[in-house]
């Protein structure tokens, strides 16, 4: 259990915790937009933590470079996906702010 393993172990658990919280939020929160916040949580912080943890496991090798590119790609696309989702919802007439369930009780 050298130093890198401990760091990656810690990163794994915190990343896992964030993903779990995101999942729980997406399930329990009342309406669409709040659930979107929770779901985007897993996309952003969860991915970063788990990716860095894998990088530590992989050590300095070609796999680590590939992981960095994947992380960069994900950092670019997942916020955009969340934005597109929210924008489409807004355009299709789902009003934020009202806490009760939306039109068909999503």
């Amino acid at each position, binding site marked *: 259990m050298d130093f890198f393993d401990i760091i990656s172990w810690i990163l794994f658990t915190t990343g896992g915790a964030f993903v779990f919280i995101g999942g729980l939020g997406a399930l329990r929160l009342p309406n669409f937009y709040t659930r979107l916040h929770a779901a985007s949580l897993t996309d952003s912080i969860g991915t970063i933590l788990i990716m860095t943890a894998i990088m530590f496991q992989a050590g300095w090798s070609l796999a680590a470079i590939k992981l960095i590119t994947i992380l960069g790609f994900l950092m670019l696309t997942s916020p*955009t996906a969340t*934005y597109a989702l929210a924008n489409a919802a807004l*355009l299709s007439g789902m009003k934020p702010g009202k806490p009760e369930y939306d039109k068909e009780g999503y």
Partner: protein
Amino acid sequence: MVNLFAMFLLTLLIITAVAIVRTKDLFVAVMLTGIFSLLMSANFFILDAADVALTEAAIGAGITTVLLLGALALTAERERPVSAPRWLPLVVVAITAVVMIYATFDKPRLGDPLAPVHQHVAPWYLEMTPVLIGIPNVVTAILGSFRGYDTLGELIVIFTACIGVLFLLGVPRGEGHQPPGNGAAPPDVALSHHLIPRVVGRLIFPFIVLFGLYVQFHGEFGPGGGFQGGAIIAAGIVLYTLLEGENSSFSAVPRWTLVAMAAGGAILYGAVGIAGMVMGGNFLNYSVLSNDPVLGQQMGILIIEAGVGITVCGALLTIFHVINAREHC
């Protein structure tokens, strides 16, 4: 530990399948199909099938969901409940299920190296591929050379689907950009008000195509090949069409080139086969293509993988554009 994770994924797979069948809203069903394909792809990866996992993710999750969504936009969104008697299908299904479970008892234990599957033909492939063809990825070697005739048949299957969809949904010949039906080019109904996705899309689009080409030509050394590369490039161009709208996409990749690509890849593959015949070997024999048989095999596999990638990309894009263009009329 991995086994436990695999069992978890399999149960998740069954739950998703049941959810797909039970849900009344078709959009939910299509999204769940995407998740179903992703879980299937993860499962394949755990079972050491890297190539198949990549293909299932690229084609299963990527293209199938896009096609289903495109078709749903043209048909109904909700499924009307029907009060048909349910017992007949259940009886038939139950009988087949019992037969299937009955068959599982004598099957070899999972992963047992002494299973007949691993004894007869597989070891020969694993030994002879480095000697005869000299490329690391045995799956691409078998796909391209040992069972190349199957892949030619496979190419023709996706070409048939492409001309089938083209025939049924009647896209006019390639002249001009006006889509069928109302003649006048409709205004670009692309997601003009989604500025951020367009900017990001334009940023990452070249990298998607680059990655597609990497997967296509890296097929000999790692998981990858014609099918996966073609599907990834097709997914990239579909993203571009969704973001920038139909007309600018056709200016980038004109309609007639798509059909030409779909047909051209199949002809290229056949031409390599016939070249082998002309040079004295049997059909699809690449060793005779150059004086050094191993080099000939590698050259043959490279060319036919390119043919596969061209056809798959052309066919998938044609199918998408035909369904997408249909929406206007």
